[in-house]
Every structure is written in C-alpha cells, then in structure tokens.
C-alpha cells in the first residue's frame, strides 16, 4: 500500500468515523439530552430508543462492526495462514476503526442509558476502547517492522545510526549538530521506569525536542541551507530524536504493553459475553429489529 493509498485508507476511516458520530450527535442531540424519564415522550423515541428502528439498528451494526473488527484482526494476528496477509499495521487500523466506530454506535444504541447487566458489557466495551487508545499509544512507541515485528535495541540503534549518516552525508550536517540531536533525550535521567515517570518524561521530552529542533533549524539556516533543505533535514533529525526517545523508553513500553494486554482482552471477552447474552435475551423477547 503506497503512502497515498494508506492516507486515503486511514483518512476514509477518520472521515467516516467523525461524520457518523457527528451525524448521530446532531440528529439525536435533542433526544439524548432529554432526561430519561421524559425521553419516552420525545417524538424521536420510537426511532432512537434502544429498541427503536434506528436505536436497535445502531446496536446491531455497532456490535457487528466490533465483532468483525476483533475477529479479522485476531485472525490476521493469530492464524498462520494470514500472517502475511497485508500489513498488520493496516489491519490494526481497520481494527481500530471498526472497534472505535462500533462502540460509538453502541453508545448511541444505549441512548446513554446505562443499566442492567448489559451495562457491564457497555462499561467493558468502554474499558476496551479506552485501553485500546492506551494500547495504541504504547504500540506506536514500540518500534516495529512494517510487518509488525518488534525491533530489538540493536536494530533500533542501527536505524539511528542510519539517520545520523543521512544527516551527515545527504544534508551535510556537521558532527556537532548531529551530536546535539543524538543526545537531545539525554538531558535527564529516567530514574525509575514507572508509568508516571515515563509520562512525565514524555511530556518534558516533547518540549525539549521542540526546543532542540528550533536550535537545530537556526544552525542549519546559519550555514546557508535552503528552507526546503532545512525542513527535510529537520524531519530526519526529528525522526532521529523520536527514535532515541523510543529506545530510551523501550523497556518500559514493553512492560506496559504486556500489562495492557491483560486489560484489553479480558474486558473485550466480558463485553462480548454479556453482549451475546443481551442479544440473546433481546431476541428471545422478540425485539428482532428488521429481522
């Protein structure tokens, strides 16, 4: 998948997700903002209530999207036959899209009424989504190959060196400046690899990286590089600094990511189990949507 196609691929997810959510909000705001005890008397109730034509449909479609999103991603990840079926990154993006928009639809299916056993499913879903966001945060901070294979520190250092070499060879950056970039994340010590310390470091490092990049840019300008050249050079320097940060946080991210799996998967299982119970009960009582 080319960069352009990937951009369209991800962009379409983004657009569909945002538009769908906006559509649901705009269409149902008046209804959803109505207190629960009065909502039945809202003119939109018959459509938007959980058992309504739209409301139940949102539940059905949202659930289906989540099931599909989980199933296809798990198959891609765990079934050998599909291990090389497309980039895992793209499947993850599809998984994130389906399992983000799906819960959004389910959220509107609940009409923001959370009660009964299905609420456990909902909150589990919420936990899964939120943990997914965290997971995504952690995931991007664990460098991998394009096939999703986790890179070792050695491999990362090689990549870092490659960045430095490109800065030196292709963009004629002097050693002093390259050292400034390479040591940008070394301004402080990460004493204990706790979550709080790591997050604090991330924030601090972000500001520091910007500061360093600004100084780097000035230096590049002083040596007479063109603006375009400066931008390209700064981009490589930025990648180099991010890589350095990730190498520095690699251990802690690995650790968090391991713990994250413990949260993300069980909540997903709980969500699905109760969701199926809910669907079973609902169907048993005759609420079959359009079927």
């Amino acid at each position: 998948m080319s960069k352009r196609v990937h951009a369209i691929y991800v962009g379409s997810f983004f657009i569909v997700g945002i538009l769908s959510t906006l559509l649901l909000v705009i269409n149902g705001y008046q209804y959803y903002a109505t207190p629960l005890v009065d909502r039945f008397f809202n003119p939109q109730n018959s459509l938007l209530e959980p058992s309504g034509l739209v409301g139940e449909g949102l539940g059905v479609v949202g659930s289906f999207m989540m099931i599909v999103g989980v199933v296809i991603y798990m198959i891609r990840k765990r079934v050998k036959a599909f291990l090389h079926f497309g980039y895992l990154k793209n499947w993850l993006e599809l998984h994130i899209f389906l399992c983000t928009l799906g819960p959004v639809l389910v959220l509107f299916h609940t009409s923001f009424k959370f009660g009964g056993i299905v609420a456990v499913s909902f909150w589990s879903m919420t936990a899964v989504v939120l943990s997914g966001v965290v997971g995504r945060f952690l995931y991007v901070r664990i460098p991998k190959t394009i096939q999703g294979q986790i890179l070792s520190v050695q491999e990362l250092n090689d990549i870092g060196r490659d960045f430095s070499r490109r800065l030196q060879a292709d963009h004629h950056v002097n050693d002093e400046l390259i050292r400034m970039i390479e040591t940008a994340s070394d301004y402080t010590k990460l004493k204990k690899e706790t979550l709080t310390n790591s997050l604090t470091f991330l924030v601090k490092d972000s500001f520091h990286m910007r500061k360093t990049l600004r100084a780097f840019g000035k230096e590049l300008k002083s040596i007479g590089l063109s603006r375009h050249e400066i931008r390209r050079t700064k981009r490589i320097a930025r990648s180099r600094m991010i890589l350095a940060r990730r190498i520095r946080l690699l251990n802690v991210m690995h650790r968090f990511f391991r713990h994250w799996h413990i949260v993300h998967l069980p909540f997903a299982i709980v969500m699905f189990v109760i969701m199926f119970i809910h669907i079973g009960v609902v169907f048993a009582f005759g609420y079959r949507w359009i079927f």
Partner: protein
Amino acid sequence: MTTEKKGSFRYISAVFLITFMAASAFAQISPGPLTTAHANLEGLSNCTKCHVLGKQVENFKCLACHTEIQDLINQNRGYHANPQVRSQNCASCHSEHHGRQFEIIHFDTKSFDHTLTGYPLKGKHATLQCRACHQTKFISSSEFEKRNGTYLGLSTSCSSCHEGPHQGTLGEDCASCHNENSFKPATKFKHDKTEFTLTGAHKKVECAKCHVSEVRNGKPFTQFAGVKFENCVPCHRDLHNGKFGEICEKCHTTVSFTLIEAKTFNHNLTDYPLIGMHADVSCRNCHGDNLNSRPKHALCTDCHKDAHHGDFTVNNVVENCADCHTVYGFKLTTFTIAMHDKGKFRLTGSHLAVPCESCHLSSNSWHFKNLGTQCIDCHKNVHGTELTEEFLPNDNCTSCHTTATWDKVAFDHNKTSFKLLGKHADVSCRSCHYRKNSAGVEVSVFRSLNPHCETCHRDIHFGQFAVQTKGGKFSECQNCHTFNNWSPTNFDHQKTKFPLTGAHAKLACIECHKEVTVNENTFIQYKLKDFRCAACHSS
C-alpha cells in the same frame, strides 16, 4: 505454562471474577428499573409476567392484571375501547423500564385527543383543566374511587359532575336540551318536542312566566316537568270567572287573548247573544281593537246611531228600539198597525196599505214625530182653491173623501146649490168637476164650475134659447128639459107665443121646425120669429 502466561491468566481470571460479581450484584437482564407501580415485578423471574417470549409485550398480559381496563374495553367504554387505541400495543403508550419516577400514564393535556374516549370535549368542557372533571368526588365507581389521580371511573352522564338544578325531574339526558357551551340558555331544547307545543304568543313568553322558580329541598328550583297545561287556567287568570268553562280555546287562540276565534267563539254564552244580523257583524264593530273590551249593550243606541234623530227620545233616553225593530234587520219592523193605531193617527183605508216610508221618509230621512194628522200634512190639495171652506174646513178632506180611496167620494152633492137630480145622480164626479185648463192639464173644478147646463152640455140649439143672466148669456134648458132625459118634457107648446091648435096640434114638429144651417152650424130651428102662416104655408 510460563510464569508470564500464568500471571496473565491470573489477571484475566480476576477481571472476569470482578466483572461477573459486579454484574450479578448490581445488574440484571432488565434494561432499566420499572416504575413504582410495577416495582413488584422487578426480577428475572417476573419477566414473563409481562413479556411473551418472541413476541415482546402482548396486551393480554397487561390486561390480565389491569382487569378494569379489560372491563372497559369489553363494555366498549372509554379511551381504551376506542378501536384506534385498542388496536395499539399497550406498551406503545405505557412503556416501561424507564425508572421508578417514569410517568407510565402520561397525559399531554394539550395534545390529548379526548374524542378517543368516546366523550368529545366540546364548548366549555374543552376549556377545562383535566382535573376539573377527573377528580375523586366525581367518580361514582367504587373500584376507581380510591385510586389517587386516576383518569378512569368517570361517567359520561352530566349528573356525575354537574348538580342538576332540575333535581331529577327531567331525567338524565341533559344533552337533549343543553349544550356544552353554557347551561343557559338550553339551546337544544325544543318546546315543540314536549307535549305542549308553543304557538302564537306563547312563543314570546319568557320561560319563567310559566315555569315558576321556587325553593325546593332547600335549593332554587324551576319547575319544568309536571307543569299543568290541560287547559289555560293554571297559567292564565280566567277573566270570565268560569262563565265559559275551562276550554278557552273554544274562543281564544294562542295568537292573542284578544283575538277571538270567531269560528268557535260562542257569543251566545255571553250576556249578549248574537242573534239575527248581529251574528254576522265583525267583532271589532262592537269591541273595537280590544276584543276583551266589554262594550255597553243594554241599549241599541250603545252601538247604533239613533236613525230617528231623537224622534223617540224621551227624557234623553231613546225608547226601546225593539218596539219597532228586531235584530234581523233595521228595516224589518215589528211595529204593527194596531200599534200605529194606538198613536195619534189611526191607519184606515188605503193608509193600511201604504208603506211606512210614504209618510215617514222624506229627504232620505225618517221622521216619526210631529208629522201631523191632517190629510194635508201628507197629501197635496189637488183642488187648490176650488173648494170652499164649507167643503174643506181646515183642510180636512173628509168632507168628501175617506181613507178607503180617493175615487170614492162620500159627498152629498145635495148639500150644494146644485142638487144632483135625474141623470145627474148617476154621472161620475169627474164628468163635471174635471176640466182641462188652458194648458191642457186636467184640473178639478168646484167653486169655479158654472151651474148652467152649457158648462157641461153642448148647446145643440146654438143659443136659440139663451137668456141674459148676471153671469152671462145661458140657455134656460129647464124650461123644456128635465134631468131625467133629453126629451123636452117640460115644454108646453101651448105656453109659447104660438100655441098649437087645430091641425097644428097634429103636425110633427119637423113640419114646422126645419133644419137650418147658420154660420156653418146646422141645427133645428125651434125659435121662430115669423108666425105668419105664409112663413110656413105657401100659397
């Protein structure tokens, strides 16, 4: 299993455990709490008390508990019995699982279509607040009476909410007279539908005039039912004091009391029965515009003008007209000849046959007083001055005439200087006493009638025997003739200047007295002047 995997499994198990414990502890399958009214149905075991597996919520489940609604549906009463409502699912209006505070019976009082209840709100009802009617005190059913805030249990009967001012006397169907806009007036009431249809002036009478208000059972009450109307008396004062009975409509109509039904009114029941021509007289001729007026009727002149101009008025009172007149016509009189004879002028003779107007009508006016009793008071003296006071004393004709006829005169001519002798006694009066005057008009003559024979008789002797008298030259006929015939009975030739002697005495008169013609008058000449023989005898 590696240590790492064991740890993961423990984590997963813990999450499951916590999740399901939480689920079982705080949650149920129910999508939300039931309302307070249905709170006793909470719990897994109660789901199917309302829900039917595979069929959501069926009405029969609801109605199995809500029997009062089922009863109303069975009776086809109320909102839920309306086909439009009955066809719906109960849950479409009475939804559940929205929390304890959810208003499961929700009325949008502004949009609720009360028509669906089978009792459309019209008029003032449409402006009322729901609770103005839907309150416990108006619920007659004990089943609903105890329900706080229920909308059930009201009757469509007006009396269930309204205290009937008629106190039950007019039945329960208030709507047959009243509408929902206002109690008064009872616009739907049609008096024509009652047993007493309003006609004529009754239509204009205020209700209260007949339907009196009173206080009954301590409350104001207007009587509408049971008003007596068999006749007019219960409402109308009998101005006739019962004289004509109680069936007023025999004479009166409802158009107006004073407008008498002429066809049915029997005036003969009054003090003044209408007899004869009075029966055909218009009521107003006597009563004027107010038929209820009681005109004087003791005297005819109370209504009638005295056509006799006071001729019969004595002491300012007209004598009884009935002495002469009847009600069958003014001209038809009952005044008899006998009654006339009691007066100053007895009718005799031809007077008996003379119509009244001949004497009493003059100048188109009747006169009865001071007409006079003399003939001349009525009759013209056709004789003028021909009759002397001797024969017409004080213009009294009875010297000659009687009332039998003018023609037969009972006059003794012998009282006159000209006694009727001989043939004269047989001659009609007219033969002598009527003459044509110079104008050719036949007039009577008495005083001016000359007693000489030539006045009446033609002198066939052409004056041969005329002698000079004071009144003129007249023949002295009596010398020869009598009144018995024209024969010269009294003539004695011997007393003449030429007495007959001898042969003369044997001769016929004509031998000597020859027919001569003098001045174209041919006559026998009796008076001879020449007595000489030769005058008759030739030689």
